[in-house]
């Protein structure tokens, strides 16, 4: 009798223990916080659930700045387990706020060294280049050749033909400002401030967001405006081909002065599902998700083993020497640069 009771008790304890253990290792869900441009094909995140038994819930902030704020404000009691989509312009701030648990994807070796950061806070997931896009037809109609450098755009021949985004309200706008700072430098005979002064004299149009710039002012591709040069992405011509029946890209890019944006994923400190979150970061860098990235978000997968879609292979131009900038340098100077920029263009 006694032995039976004991064995029942042991079984109960074992069962409860197993239940607790399993509830720790498989949470109800894992929450992925990301920005508004995040798009994924049906079935891709489900593949993660098939592997791990945990469904993925996606929380999308409108823009990257809002996302970082939301993560910082909820640091002590996070609403998500993994943050994906933070780029090199916001990364330092997030790390300074101790937003992430140390972790790099188990499969980190598939990402080239150039995309990784020192330290083990985040894992690179994708990258893309912000470049000036051109409308060759619009330029030819005006009897102009294709500008080949950022400096060309300040040439009076290209007066009134260029539209850019406000760096304080737009992420490609900030990337372009950083590109000009890197290309022209802060000191010397012709620093970035002088370049912007010339752009202003050349009647550059500044708009708050990418949508207005590309659709409202740009004349190439699906743009509906009057200006043949716009700050957009190196992959915009690819998207133009992909969403139309054309067999050649209607727009092109200036390969000079492109700014490389790298987007990372990290595990939010305070998560109660750390091990599942680690699996999710691994999954984001694995081929299933990586090969889904290009045609949904029009950026490049960080995983070098991921196969690119045909339209990327055929039409994408990858700038040979994109501008890169240390996230710490961006964090340190961003406010000052934006303030200086504002005084030049006001």
């Amino acid at each position, binding site marked *: 009798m006694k032995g039976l009771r004991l064995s029942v008790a042991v079984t109960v304890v074992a069962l409860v223990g197993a239940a607790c253990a399993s509830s720790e290792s498989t949470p109800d869900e894992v929450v992925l916080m990301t920005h508004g441009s995040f798009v994924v094909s049906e079935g891709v995140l489900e593949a993660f659930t098939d592997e791990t038994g945990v469904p993925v819930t996606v929380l*999308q902030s409108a823009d990257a700045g809002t996302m970082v704020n939301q993560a910082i404000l*909820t640091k002590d009691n996070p609403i998500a387990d993994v943050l994906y989509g933070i780029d090199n312009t916001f990364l330092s701030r997030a790390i300074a706020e101790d937003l992430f648990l140390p972790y790099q994807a188990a499969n980190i070796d598939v990402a080239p060294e150039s995309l990784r950061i020192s330290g083990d806070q985040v894992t690179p997931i994708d990258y893309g280049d912000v470049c000036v896009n051109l409308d060759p037809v619009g330029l030819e109609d005006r009897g102009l050749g294709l500008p080949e450098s950022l400096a060309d755009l300040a040439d009076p021949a290209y007066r009134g033909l260029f539209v850019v985004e406000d760096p304080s309200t737009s992420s490609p706008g900030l990337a372009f400002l950083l590109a000009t700072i890197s290309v022209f430098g802060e000191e010397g005979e012709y620093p970035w401030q002088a370049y912007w002064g010339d752009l202003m004299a050349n009647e550059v149009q500044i708009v*708050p967001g990418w949508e207005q710039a590309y659709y409202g002012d740009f004349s190439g591709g699906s743009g509906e*405006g009057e200006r043949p040069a716009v700050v957009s992405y190196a992959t915009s011509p690819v998207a133009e081909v992909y*969403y139309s029946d054309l067999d050649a890209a209607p727009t092109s890019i200036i390969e000079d002065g492109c700014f490389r944006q790298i987007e990372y994923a990290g595990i939010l400190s305070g998560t109660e599902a750390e091990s599942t979150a680690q699996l999710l970061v691994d999954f984001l860098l694995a081929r299933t998700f990586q090969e889904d990235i290009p045609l949904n978000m029009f950026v490049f997968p960080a995983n070098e083993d991921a196969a690119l879609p045909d339209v990327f292979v055929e039409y994408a131009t990858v700038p040979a020497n994109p501008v890169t900038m240390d996230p710490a340098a961006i964090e340190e100077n961003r406010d000052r640069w934006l303030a200086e920029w504002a005084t030049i263009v006001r």
Partner: protein
Amino acid sequence: MRSKRSLLLIGAIPAVFLGYFFIYPVLTILYTGLVPDGQIATSAFSEALTSPTVRGIAWFTLWQALLSTLLTVAIGLPIAYVFARYRFPGRSLLRSLTLVPFVLPTIVVGVAFLALVGPGSPFGVNLRGTIWAILIAHVFYNLAIVIRGVGAFWEQVDPHLEDAARILGAGRFRVFRTITLPLLRPAILSSAALVFLFSFTSFGVILVLGDLRHTTLEVEIWRQATAFLRLDLAAALAVLQLIGVTVLLVLYGKARNRRAAELTLRPPSEVARAPRTTGEWAVVASTLCMLAIIVVTPLAVLIWRSLSTPDGLGLSNYAHLFNPPRATAVFVSPTDAITNTLQFAVPAVLIASGIGLLAATVIVSASGRSSRVFDTVLMLPLGTSAVTIGFGFLVALDQPIDLRASILLVPVAHALVAIPFVVRSTVPVMESIQHRLREAAAVLGASPRRAWREVDLPLITRALAVAAMFAFAISVGEFGATSFIARPATATIPVAIFRLLGRPGTFGEAMAMSVILMAIVAVAALGIEAVRGTRSGGV
């Protein structure tokens, strides 16, 4: 009429709702921003108060909002008059269309505006970068508030009052100034307050059509928070914005508090008639022309864009929405998007109507300062920046139940914006209901509850129908809260439009989706109009 205790009970529900979903989150985020390490960040305050840039932004925010309000009321009044007093072909449809701009995403409207009055204008008018582009856009967005808000009241004002004055020899203008205007004053003030709050906290219009010189506190709060990650300065600016809104709401409360004229309201069917003379037809025609220029033209541009394809005019943009031609099925189908949108809109309308009505009852029945304070606080969510409320939810609503990422929060956030509409549309009607009517009912032995149900309710229902329409439109068009909490599979129409606009090549599809959004709001407005029509005979 009502006992103090029952008023307290009725008032408790809206008070708790507002306290938990507005006051508590806003105070928490302001505290988080302004007292970062247990020490009050005085430097942010002094920065906000002494910076000439901030002063310029605050001043611009105020005067553009006042000017937008004046313009919207000036243009809206004659249109409201024509809709209230005349029956003509296409009246219901046109009136329903006025609600459409209210829901359209600003990026979409911005593109339409720039096509009409931008650098490539067919009329040769380039208003880009001028204050006029912003003012016209505010009129475009808010005209419905005046047309519907004042119109709902005007169409129940007995025209015999004016006729009598004219027979006694008063001129048209004198009749308007001495008879009509005083009668309409509560309704005009109500609508003007709503237009003012929308313009004061204008965000999308300013971002799309403004520039660095023309920006509002709302945009600056967002910029400081998201581009500079300066929560302290953003919070200081939010306090500045709240103070400004409160001061204006108190002034509005004072103006409103002057005794409203009591009059017998008539069913709209008895008030409106067909225009008779050439002069009357001219008034109707010229007013409708103005409406067409301001509201219909930009909508027509969007419809035309949605039909433009590489091979001329056609329906392929719509076909692509239902049947995406590319392998990556990234977009929610229009039918799913409509279902998702309604799933948020219906509870939002119910919450806003219920809580708004309870609040309006308290405001009308209670007297003096407590009623005014309650009224002012109810309006505040409209004058508070979305960033403040959104971040407030995040820092405050994790206890006792974690609502921060809950789907329930979407209709709640929508209702918060819609409740002022319910209050502002029902209060003027409630106040104008003749005490005599109720007293007569009491003399005849009816209980106060029965008097409320049989006398007040039918009149209030008509006002509530207008408010419900706005609540519906607010929910259907809302983007920020919905996009954060809605899962990719539960994306609403505005979220779908945002995604389509997020890449080159799917602009036509975004326009088609916008036209679908327009159609839904127009159909809903027509539907409510029809319901209102059948109910209104009963008084």
